[in-house]
């Protein structure tokens, strides 16, 4: 036995375990890829199908309902993946909610709920503005897990936050374009959702996938 190398090895184990025990990734790479892909498909379909002739009272079915479905499906799938991850290595199978997973969900929930409540403003705002608010609040929601998240989640959070802020600032210009009849507001909202929730998650998954086993 070599005491020095043994001591060094044990210190490495301690450091790595301490880091692992304090870091939690609330969005798994496969979850992000699946969610991002579904969002991209729904967005592209929405852009092509959304017509300016759709009555205002039906817009909820052409925008809110499909995106609520995407949120539920992608969210449940991501939670299922995270729950499975928590059972790895043991004899148990099935879903396991770890304390860190509970903490992460507790941190993200207010931001997500705030986004949900924004849909109530639908009668006063364009769907594109609500989509921009969702992007911004999703960024806030991700950043709220920042104190125990890996850098990649924080970068994703800031990306969503910045995109949401830019979209809201540009909102006046976008609204003006719509008024002139040059753009389809529903298609624009689908485009915003696809570019952010679709593309950003796919890029995140591609960047994180190679090292997901280490975090």
């Amino acid at each position, binding site marked *: 036995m070599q*005491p020095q190398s043994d001591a060094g090895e044990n210190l490495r184990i*301690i450091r790595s375990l301490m880091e692992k*025990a304090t870091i939690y990734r609330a969005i798994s790479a496969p979850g992000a890829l699946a969610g991002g892909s579904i969002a991209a498909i729904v967005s592209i379909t929405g852009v092509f199908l959304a017509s300016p002739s759709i009555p205002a009272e039906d817009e909820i079915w052409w925008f809110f309902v499909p995106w609520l479905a995407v949120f539920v499906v992608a969210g449940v799938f991501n939670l299922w993946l995270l729950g499975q991850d928590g059972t790895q290595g*043991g*004899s148990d199978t099935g879903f*396991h909610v770890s304390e860190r997973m509970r903490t992460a969900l507790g941190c993200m929930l207010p931001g997500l709920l705030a986004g949900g409540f924004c849909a109530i403003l639908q009668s006063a705002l364009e769907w594109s503005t609500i989509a921009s608010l969702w992007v911004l609040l999703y960024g806030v929601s991700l950043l709220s897990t920042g104190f125990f998240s890996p850098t990649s989640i924080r970068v994703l959070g800031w990306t969503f936050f910045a995109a949401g802020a830019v979209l809201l600032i540009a909102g006046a210009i976008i609204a003006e374009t719509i008024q002139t009849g040059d753009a389809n507001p529903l298609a624009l909202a689908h485009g915003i959702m696809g570019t952010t929730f679709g593309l950003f998650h796919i890029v995140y998954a591609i960047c994180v996938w190679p090292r997901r086993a280490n975090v």
Partner: protein
Amino acid sequence: MFDFDKIDKTIHEKGRLGIMTLLAVRTSWTFQDLKSELKMSDGNLITHLRTLHDAGMVAITREILDRPQTSYSLTAKGRAAFQEYLAVLEQIITAGKPKV
């Protein structure tokens, strides 16, 4: 010359070192969380936890919430022993460094 008998053999075993490290990071861990973090089998983990409990380093709390749940935490003795163990590791590494 460093006295290697100073190393706490209860903590020095890798499985138990992992348990002690996690317990030092957070106040309390459930059995399930420890198991998934350390990728240990039930039997292995129970054996190591029992050894640490018998040595007075780990406290066990049994609660019945929606189902029975066992949580583990470091005792004051366990925390002191872990800090001492870290100090000993540091001394070993320092002692092995060539003097400039």
